[in-house]
């Protein structure tokens, strides 16, 4: 992320860097560059099962953060028949084995992948408990920024690159 780049310059005056960091507060709010996002979100239902199909694209800053040990927690909020349920998945890089691990603590689900693409592919097929209610289903998928490492939470409020949010999508009752 640009903020880290701004502070990496060795040998520069610390006072100057302090000013630079202050300026970065403003710049981060309107940070440019390639932005990721949850570009698609679909729901597949059938045979008493439901699966959330996503198209997730990570911005380079997030990819870099992931490879440097920043866990990414994705949160799914499912509202069906007035009932609201949450589940989240954590994507983390394991440097010892050079693997990416996708974990869903609530379901004791944990799988390792040799590449980020494989891990994201697994993330994009997100099995959900079949809603008991067959009516309207609203789903929102987002990166849970509150579970980011502490120093990153506040800048992430201003940095759009860390804003992965599908918005609330609603599917009508099946015909």
């Amino acid at each position, binding site marked *: 992320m640009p903020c880290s780049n701004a502070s990496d310059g060795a040998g520069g005056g610390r006072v100057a860097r*302090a000013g630079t960091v202050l300026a970065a507060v403003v710049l981060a709010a309107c940070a440019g560059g390639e932005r990721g996002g949850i570009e698609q979100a679909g729901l597949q239902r059938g045979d008493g099962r439901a699966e959330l199909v996503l198209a997730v694209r990570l911005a380079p800053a997030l990819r870099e953060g992931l490879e440097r040990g920043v866990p990414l927690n994705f949160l799914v909020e499912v509202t069906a028949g007035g009932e609201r349920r949450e589940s989240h998945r954590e994507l983390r890089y394991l440097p010892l084995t050079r693997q990416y691990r996708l974990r869903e603590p609530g379901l004791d689900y944990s799988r390792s992948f040799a590449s980020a693409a494989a891990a994201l592919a697994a993330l994009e097929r997100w099995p959900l408990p079949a809603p008991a209610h067959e009516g309207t289903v609203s789903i929102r998928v987002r990166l849970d*920024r509150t579970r980011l490492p*502490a120093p990153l939470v506040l800048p992430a409020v201003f940095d759009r690159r860390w804003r992965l949010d599908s918005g609330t999508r609603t599917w009508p009752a099946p015909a």
Partner: protein
Amino acid sequence: MASARLIRWLSAALVLLTVLALSTAGLHLASDATVGRARLGPYYPALLGLAGLIAFVLAVVIALQVLRLLRALRQRAPGARLSARLSALIAVLCLPPALLVFVFAMNFLFGAVDSRFAAPVAAALDDALEVGRLYLEERRDGAERAVAELAAQLGESDRGQWPAQVDQAIDRLGALQLAVFAGDGAVLASASADPDWLRPVQPSQQQRLRAGTLGVAGEVVGAGDEIVLQAQAVVDEPLPPAARALLQAVFPVPARYVPLAQRIEAASADYRQLEFLRGALKLSMALVLGLVLLLVLLAALLLALRASRRLAMPVARLAEATTRIARGEFGATVGAVAGDDELGDLVDAFNSMSHELALAQASVRGTQALIESQRAYLDAVLTRISSAVVGLDAGGRVRLLNPAGERLLGAEAGQLQGQDLEALAALRPDLAPFAQRIGERLRAHASGWREEVRLPEAPGAPILLLRGSALVEPDGGRGHLVVFDDATVLQRAQREAAWAEVARRLAHEIKNPLTPIQLAAERLRRRYLGRMAPDDAEVLERATGTIVSQVESLKALVNGFSDYARPQPPRRLRVALNALIGDVLDLHAQDPRLTLERRLAVAEILVEADPDRLRQVLNNLLRNAVEAMAAGTDGGMRLEVASAVEPHEGRAMAVVEIRDHGPGLPAGFDLAAVEPYRSDKPRGSGLGLVIVQRILEEHGGWLEADSPGDGGARFRIRLPVLA
């Protein structure tokens, strides 16, 4: 007062607590957002919005205060400049240190953050991680080889023999689990050396693909807190590739290695993560501490404005009160100042001083009022006194001349004010002896003297009786006061007093025998009138009648003498003058010879007088007029009576004019020279005009007389109108 002080204390305490709370919350937030666990993470946007809102509100309040201060400065309100200077001073004292501390704090924190990322540490962690990886790769390679050998052995035997082979191999290989899966995933054979690994673990699709492609594949897999090695090899069977069996072995990693590897991995991951988050960490610190600094500075600025206003307020009130005192508004006080400090002492001292000034001013005003009262009293005395008074300064210049003096000297005070007596002599040459004598006394520095001065050249040759006395002037000089009277008036008064004594004795001596004479005459008439012859009776009748009538005349004369000799103080009643004139004229209208012309004022004239005495005045004057006209004419008598109100020396005076058309006043007639018992009329007592003058003087009025050019005599009564 106490509640206002309590409110001020609470307000200040609230602001201080707010600042402390903001600072504490900000520092806690900074800690939470940088080195903490971001427990407040979900609330960061709300907290930032709240902080922004507080900053905005503080900024608006400060802007309003500054605007108010600027407006007060433009209006030059008391204390505004002092308040502005104090605010600027406090701001200058607060802002640079705070900014300096902030910059140095940020510099220190950034330095501390940067110092955590030393290159040797990163390299050591990378090396340790690499060692761990190499160890695992070596173990993985060994696992792959063992699985490949066992798969080759299984490929040489039937599937029915695989369970036994697997059982035999597991202990030999030291694996946790061995399992053979058919192409469709069915378990063909399995063996387990650990109760936790009884259930065969299905290889993933990727593992199947890799093993199918490479023949054998292995990888390190994290399983909870454990690390295991999974290796897969395809059993070489005479079957299509998709239908061939897949052997999978799970090998343990030595228990001593696992925690070491996990710690190395965690340390490396944390270090890399922190390195990645270094910028974000600095940004969070700068953001939170900057926000805290902004809030604290705004609160401090607000406090500075309030404090400067509170400090300047008593000074402004003092300045305002001083201005009021300078304008002469003594007694202006300043409200008490909260706090037991020098400002409070100053305000108390000022209020005490103002109070003392007010008392002194009241005393001065009282003294001035007393002086004015005494001066007014003296003026009134000098105005009313019949004696003339002239005050002279050390140089002989006139400083004072009362109305009696003006009348006697025939000059106005304004003409002589500041002039010396020679100017008076130049103005009135006949008064030269008067000025000359006084001048002589002044030059002789006489302290008390008395002298008569005759003015031979003046009409009537009056004699002035002078009494002089030295005075000390207000400036310390030696002045002189001269009191003088017209000795002729005094002599007249003395004569009047003497005549009054004569009249009293005369009345006393004459009145006593009159009644016996009258009674004797009446008894003679009753006893002898019927016995005498008609001729003698007629003589007796006429003689006794003459005696009685003359006795009556003598009684009237004696009564007049009594009135003159022992005048009673007049009553003071509200009298409608026109109505009273009308009553008197109605009596005289009975006289057929008389033609009365009334020209009375339309509006009634009210005077304070004794109505009986006023009737006496009018009757005397009307009788005089009728008698004068009766003596001088044979035909009808015309008498004009008029009334009006005229101003005289600032007072409204009622004027009653009685004009006859008789022979007029005798040549050289002077009212001032009229004396009792002197009359031009054959039967007059000579008391009529004297009594009229006395009555009018008793009422504060006077009588005027002249002879108009077209004949007759004119008398004017002047009386003060009732206010």
